[in-house]
C-alpha cells in the first residue's frame, strides 16, 4: 500500500516538475483567422530561434485571450489585434498598464480595412486612382437595370456598413453624378457580383474589404482614397458609420478610415522581443499574396509561417537585430 502511495506521489511530482521545466517563458496567442495565426507562428519561430526564448503557442479567440491576458498575464503576446474590436475592459487595461500596445500608428497589417474597390485592369486602363476619379466615370460601371447610370454595389441587408455606404452615397452627391445603388442582397450576391463582373471583364465598383483571398484572386484595388481625405472622426463615427439614412442628414464626403491592427503584450517581457514585435508589420498587398498562397496550397498556419520565413527573408530581417537574423537564418537551413 505504502509503496503505491509513494509511487503515485513521485509520479505526480515528476509530472509537475517536468511541466514546470517545460513551461515556456513566452506564450503567444494564436488567433483564429488566417493571418492572425500565421503571425503567431512567425513570432514563435523568430523569438525561439532568434532571441533564444522558449515559446508556446496558445490557441484561442479574442474573447478568451484578452481576459486571460488581463487576469493571468498569459499569453504574453497577441500579434494581430483589431483595435476597433477591443472591449471596454481591454481599453481600461491598456490605460492602466496591465496590457501594453506596442505597435505604432501604421499597424501590423498596413492598409487593412473596408472601403470601395475597383478591378485593377479598369483602374489602370482609365487611370482611376481616387474615389473622385471613379465618380466622374459612371459610364464605365453600368448599372444592370439602368445602363445609363453607374452602379455601386453596397453592403447586404443587415450589415452595419450598409448605412455607411448609403450615407457616403449621399455625401458624395452620387445621384446627381449619375450613380445608382446596386443592392447585393447577401454576401453570396456580393461575392458573385464581383466574381462575375471581373471574370467577364466588366467594370465593377463598390464595397469589399481587405486583406482577403477574394481581393487577391480577383485583383481588386482599394480601399480607394479620396481627394478630401478622411474628414474627421466626428463626421465619420457620429454620423456616417453609425446613423441610418435619415439621422445623418449633412454627412461630409470622406474616405474610409483604415482599420487599425496592433500587437498587444503583457508587461515585463524581454525588451529585445518587445522591440521586434513593435516593428513587425506587413503591407496589405503582401498579406493578400500570402493569403492567396495559403488558399492555393490549402496550407496550415505553420506551413505558411515557414514558407514566409524561407521565401521572404528581405521582409523579416528588417524586423530583427542583425544577430537575431543570423541565428534565425542558420536555423532555417
Amino acid at each position, binding site marked *: 500500500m505504502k509503496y503505491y502511495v509513494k509511487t503515485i506521489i513521485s509520479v505526480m511530482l515528476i509530472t509537475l516538475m517536468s511541466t514546470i521545466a517545460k513551461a515556456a517563458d513566452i506564450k503567444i496567442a494564436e488567433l483564429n483567422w488566417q493571418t492572425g495565426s500565421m503571425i503567431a507562428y512567425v513570432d514563435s519561430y523568430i523569438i525561439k530561434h532568434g532571441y533564444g526564448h522558449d515559446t508556446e503557442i496558445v490557441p484561442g479567440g479574442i474573447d478568451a485571450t484578452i481576459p486571460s491576458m488581463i487576469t493571468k498575464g498569459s499569453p504574453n503576446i497577441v500579434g494581430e489585434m483589431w483595435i476597433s474590436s477591443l472591449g471596454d475592459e481591454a481599453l481600461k487595461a491598456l490605460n492602466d498598464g496591465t496590457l501594453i500596445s506596442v505597435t505604432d500608428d501604421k499597424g501590423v497589417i498596413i492598409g487593412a480595412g473596408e472601403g470601395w474597390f475597383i478591378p485593377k485592369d479598369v483602374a489602370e486602363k482609365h487611370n482611376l486612382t481616387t474615389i473622385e476619379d471613379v465618380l466622374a466615370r459612371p459610364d464605365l460601371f453600368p448599372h*444592370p*437595370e439602368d445602363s445609363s447610370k453607374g452602379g455601386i454595389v453596397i453592403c447586404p*441587408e*443587415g450589415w452595419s456598413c450598409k448605412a455607411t455606404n448609403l450615407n457616403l452615397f449621399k455625401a458624395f452627391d452620387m445621384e446627381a453624378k449619375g450613380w445608382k445603388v446596386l443592392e447585393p*442582397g447577401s454576401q453570396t*450576391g456580393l461575392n458573385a457580383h464581383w466574381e*462575375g463582373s471581373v*471574370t467577364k471583364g466588366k467594370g465593377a465598383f463598390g464595397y469589399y474589404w481587405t486583406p482577403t483571398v477574394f481581393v487577391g484572386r480577383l485583383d481588386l484595388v482599394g480601399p480607394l482614397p479620396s481627394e478630401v481625405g478622411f474628414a474627421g472622426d466626428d463626421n465619420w463615427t457620429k454620423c456616417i458609420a453609425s446613423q441610418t439614412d435619415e439621422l445623418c442628414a449633412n454627412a461630409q464626403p470622406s474616405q474610409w478610415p483604415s482599420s487599425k491592427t496592433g500587437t498587444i503584450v503583457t508587461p515585463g517581457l524581454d525588451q529585445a522581443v518587445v522591440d521586434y514585435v513593435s516593428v513587425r508589420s506587413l503591407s496589405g498587398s503582401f498579406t493578400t499574396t500570402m493569403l492567396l498562397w495559403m488558399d492555393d496550397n490549402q496550407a496550415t498556419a505553420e506551413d505558411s509561417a515557414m514558407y514566409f520565413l524561407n521565401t521572404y527573408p528581405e521582409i523579416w530581417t528588417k524586423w530583427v537585430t542583425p544577430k537575431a537574423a543570423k541565428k534565425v537564418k542558420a536555423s532555417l537551413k
Partner: protein
Amino acid sequence: MNFPSLDRETITSFKKSIDSTFREFAINWGEWFTELLSPIHWLLIHFEKLLIATPWYIFLGLISLLLWKATQNWKLILGFLISFIFIGLVGMWDDTMRTLAIVLVSTLVCIVIGIPIGILMAKNNLAHRIILPILDLMQTIPSFVYLIPVVMLFGLGKIPGLIAISVFAIPPVIRFTNIGLREVNKDLKETAQALGLKPLHILRLIELSLARNVILGGINQTIMMALSMVVIASMIGVRGLGSQVMNSIGNGYLGLGVISGLSIVALAIIIDRAIQSHNKRYDKWRDYK
C-alpha cells in the same frame, strides 16, 4: 476506418477544373445570354414600373373587376380589398408591387416553357422518362448551388432572380399538364379521330380543354412556389417583399418580418383562392351546359 477517398490534390483539381470551365463559359457566353434575355428584362423592369406607377385606387378597382369577372365571389373580393388596404397602410405597397411583378413574369415564363414540355411528356414516353428525373433535380437541388453561377453570368438583379424562381417553380406546371393530358378519356380522343379531326385540333379542342382545370391547378402551384422563392431571390438583389424579410432577419426586426411575411401570405392566398374559385365556377358552368 475512413472511406478510401481520392487524394486531396485530385479532388482539388477536379473542383478547380469545374471552376475554370465555368469561368471560361461565363467569359465567352455571359454577354450573349444577357442579350438573349434582354426582352424579358425589359418586360420585368417596365411591368414593375407600371404596377408601381398605377394609382392604388385604380389598381384595387381593376383587380376587383377582374376577380368579379373570373369568380363572381364577393367574399374573395372583400378579402382582397382588406388585405391590400392593410398592405398599403403598413407601407408595403411598392414592395408588394415589385414582388407581384417578378412573380407574374416568372409565372408567365414558366407557362410559356412549361406547357409545351408537359404536352411533349404526355405524348412521348421517352421524353417522359428523361424529363421526370430532371424535374426532381430542379426541385431538390439547393438553390444556392445555381444562384452563384447565375449571378456570375447575368449580374445582380432581376434576371438571375427570375431564373432562380423559374427553375424552382416550373415543375408543377409541367407535371400537371402531363397528368391532365394523360387523364383525358381515350374514348373521346378516338371519337374525335373517327370524326376526322387533326392531332392539333384534338389537342386544342379536346385534350387541353378537358385538362384545363388540372393545368390551372398546376399554374396555381407554380405561382405559390414562385412566391415562396422571393426571399431566396432577394439574396441576389431582387427588391420587394423578400428583401424586407431579409432586412428583418439581418437586423432582428421581428415586426418588419411579420408584416412582410404576412404580405407574402396575403398575396398567395388571394391568388390561390381566385384560381380555385374560378375553377369551381367553370366546372359548374360546364356541368350545367
